């Protein structure tokens, strides 16, 4: 009886030490630190590298027009337009830019997906080609009755390149993670000047 209690105690002790050691190792490797690290704040005036894209925010404004860059907007509603210069840093034409900029839920309803338009000729979400900077407009419909904000926050999402993915063994960009946040002032209208570096 006593013998059995002693061996049980021994087993519990060993298991406890093992668990404590595992948690300690995880802590040393930074498993608990990563979660609480605040996102870096990016400067809107300098180019932002997201892996696939080089972004340079140019201006933001709120429009009440019927069309913004050929996009039909909800009648009577407002739309937030962000113009940004995008350069494809990869070796292939791509349109993987739908999730690279996320507007803060305080300004835009998270369920609202932006229209993304090439400002040159209002083409809706075309592929962008390697090494050729293009001016693009992200157009978010604002919630009904919302006032035009003075500024808004964006989260920039970056991806990492894998020469071979785990499923098909093909190259690609994976693992989207927030790279930082930035605050962009909202100008008066389409004629407001670009943010200068």
């Amino acid at each position, binding site marked *: 009886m006593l013998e059995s209690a002693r061996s049980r105690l021994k087993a519990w002790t060993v298991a406890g030490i093992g668990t404590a050691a595992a948690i300690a190792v995880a802590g040393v490797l930074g498993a608990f630190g990563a979660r609480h690290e605040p996102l870096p704040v990016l400067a809107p005036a300098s180019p932002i590298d997201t892996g696939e894209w080089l972004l340079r925010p140019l201006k933001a404004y709120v429009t009440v027009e019927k069309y913004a860059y050929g996009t039909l907007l909800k009648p009577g509603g407002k739309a937030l337009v962000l113009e940004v210069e995008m350069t494809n840093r990869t*070796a*292939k*034409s791509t349109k993987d830019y739908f999730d690279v900029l996320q507007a803060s839920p305080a300004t835009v309803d998270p369920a609202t997906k932006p229209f993304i338009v*090439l400002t040159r000729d209002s*083409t809706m979400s*075309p*592929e962008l*080609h390697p090494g*050729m*900077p293009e001016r693009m407009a992200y157009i978010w419909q604002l919630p009904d009755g919302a006032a035009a904000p003075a500024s808004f926050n964006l989260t920039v999402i970056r991806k990492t390149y894998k020469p071979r993915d785990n499923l098909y063994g093909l190259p690609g960009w994976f693992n989207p993670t927030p790279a930082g946040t930035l605050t962009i002032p909202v100008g008066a209208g389409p004629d407001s000047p670009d943010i200068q570096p």
Partner: protein
Amino acid sequence: MNMRKSANLVLLLVAAVFCYGLQISKPHYGELIGPIPARGKLGDTVVGRAFEVHAEKVEFARKLTVDQFGQQRVLTTGGVWAVVTVEIAARSESTTIGVASWRGPTGLTYDQTERLSFMNGLLPVAIDPGLPRKARLIFEVRPDEASDATLLVSEKLVAALDSQAEIALGPVAVAADGLPAGTVDMLDMAQPL
């Protein structure tokens, strides 16, 4: 006994080195199941499994004019427009040519532009055996990717284990303004092929 132990150790090391050599020298899965190239040059008829393609000429332009619903539109670009006129035909059964890319000398790959999606005669085009048809392949490229480029044509985007025509377009001289020599200011896409 000691002798045998060290012999085993050497054998183990040799096996490890051999396996590592195999790992770094053998083609990977993605390369093994990739497209099968059918190579040729400008003016050749390149024959693939299901289609054959003949690149006639390459033109460069600063701007394109297109007809959209009876209205003329001018399309500008941050680089230069490259327009390749090709003749394509199916070999034994009707099929569709869906994808064309421009691979520059440094390997940057420019897909056919999506800004003229309303225009007739762009990919994807349906082709039939014995009825060759002409098409324009239109690319926006960076001027320094214009020379010694390769035109890639395939039936579909993932041309795994199927033919991909690779047509060498040859050298292009550079003019004083950095654009390819012979770049015209305006190219009219409404002109018949």
